[in-house]
């Protein structure tokens, strides 16, 4: 089928990338700093892509993604540190609990539209953060100690699974239904599509992967604190999606890579860091107002090269 034409090259590239990086890490050609940056890139891509499903595909403007990141981070930390279960189990439980949180938040708030939904999700994310801030069992404001368990392998496998699930969802009748909600909710409803269902499902899937990213995130830094999951974190994720181009998955991936690299290298210049970072954002938005990729996907460019006439979109 059409899909498998892209699927196998993707898997081959993924395995190659993984093997090369893993070789570089185990041969100690790249040091801890770089391998950590690579893990951070993987986590940020997962976050960007999971929010892309909610904002870019389903068109629901949620700006509380850090809340689900926090749920995944704390729940998975509890699973490994208090219950002493394996890390894999922690990742899965972190994702599931975040998805449940997504359902609880999504079912009432997805009735709202546009700005109102944004405010509601922002509020929910703050509630989640404050709940963790006030639970002494997870350390309160001082934070919680977590062992360093995240490796390149865990991060990369989670990243690949995230991409496969979200791409496969998008390129199916379900993804098309979600896109139709974004395009015109009233018409979508009139076409017999249960718009609430698809909004909630997209929100839950997005939250699930945010939770997975949270599990990777918390086991990468030795300590987690509620202050890491404030609304600035939500905006960081939102910026990945908007800068990449709303509706473009490869755009979200690219901008997550770009911005993670920029902000990591700028850590050497703490005085000017935020100024330069903001300038990058302003420049990109000035010269590419539709985002890095617009609504195109990387695969569309390949198609354009092959058939000069152009053709379908959504990279099937």
């Amino acid at each position, binding site marked *: *089928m059409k899909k498998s034409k892209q699927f196998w090259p993707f898997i081959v590239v993924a395995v190659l990338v993984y093997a090369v990086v893993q070789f570089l890490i185990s041969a100690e050609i790249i040091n801890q700093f770089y391998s950590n940056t690579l893990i951070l890139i993987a986590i940020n891509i997962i976050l960007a892509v999971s929010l892309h499903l909610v904002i870019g595909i389903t068109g629901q403007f949620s700006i509380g993604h850090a809340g689900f990141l926090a749920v995944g981070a704390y729940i998975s930390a509890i699973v490994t540190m208090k219950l002493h279960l394996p890390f894999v189990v922690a990742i899965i439980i972190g994702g599931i609990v975040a998805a449940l949180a997504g359902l609880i938040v999504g079912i009432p708030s997805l009735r709202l539209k546009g700005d109102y939904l944004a405010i509601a999700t922002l509020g929910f994310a703050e509630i989640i953060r404050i709940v963790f801030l006030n639970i002494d069992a997870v350390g309160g404001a001082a934070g919680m100690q977590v062992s360093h368990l995240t490796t390149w392998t865990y991060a990369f496998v989670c990243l690949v699974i995230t991409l496969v699930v979200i791409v496969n969802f998008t390129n199916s009748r379900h993804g*098309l239904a979600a896109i*139709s909600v974004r395009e015109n909710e*009233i*018409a979508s*409803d*009139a076409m017999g599509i*249960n718009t609430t269902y698809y909004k909630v499902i997209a929100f839950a899937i997005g939250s699930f992967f945010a939770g997975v990213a949270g599990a990777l995130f918390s086991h990468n830094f030795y300590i987690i604190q509620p202050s890491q999951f404030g609304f600035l974190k939500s905006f960081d994720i939102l910026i990945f999606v908007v800068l990449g181009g709303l509706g473009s998955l490869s755009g979200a991936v690219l901008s997550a890579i770009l911005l993670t690299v920029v902000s990591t290298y700028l850590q050497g210049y703490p005085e000017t860091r935020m100024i330069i970072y903001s300038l990058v954002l302003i420049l990109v938005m000035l010269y590419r107002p539709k985002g890095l990729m617009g609504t195109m996907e990387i695969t569309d460019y390949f198609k354009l090269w092959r058939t000069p006439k152009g053709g379908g979109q959504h990279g099937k």
Partner: protein
Amino acid sequence: MENKPLLEVKNTGIQFGGLKAVQNLNMVLNQGELVGLIGPNGAGKTTSFNLLTGVYVPTEGDIIFNGERVNGLPPFKVTRKGISRTFQNIRLFNDLSVLENVKVAYHSLAKHNILSSVLRLPSHFKGEQEMEEKSIEFLKIFSLDKYKDELAKNLPYGQQRRLEIARALATGPKLLLLDEPAAGMNPQETKDLMDLIAFIRNKFDLTILLIEHDMNLVMGVCERIYVLDHGQLLAEGSPEEIRNHPKVIEAYLGEEVHDVNA
């Protein structure tokens, strides 16, 4: 079956706060009929459509479709029962291709679930292929297949209207509601539209209710006409009866002033 009406609207109305937008609406549509709904601006025509399709829940009365009560159902369920509609302001999925616009309509007819799509199980490929084939077949009927990869927003206006009707029909309705299908069309496009309406009616064994301001079109194709004014049914009858109905003339042209020449 012959004598049982397809759609029965019984004393239906809706009130927004103190405003009675539509009240005491009574309509009967039999299988296969082509009925017009006319009235001055603000008479409540589109509101009536919104009542029939579940966008608004009537505050009084009942809507019986195919022997089932459909008032109170959400719009997507009404569509699945077999009432489909187009919109006064075209509501296509602008950034989707023509083919995808029609595919969306086939959504609820396909059965493969999210898990089988995510895992790319055989049922996913089968379902998707079926949707694609049916959609292309469907576009051919409307001679839109040559535009299938074009974005909907790039189509000429007349073709967009055509696509909207095609998309509404792809959901497999028994009753089609057309909200001002000829709005903004030139006379040639209107004529093509009239042919199209006649064609789909025979082809899909449809019952059609249409709102229209273009009297040529209404009088030309409708077998029966309902006239609404100020949210109430003013008259009902054949085009000939409606044309000469004193109340209708009054609503459209204003009251005759008798004593001017006296």
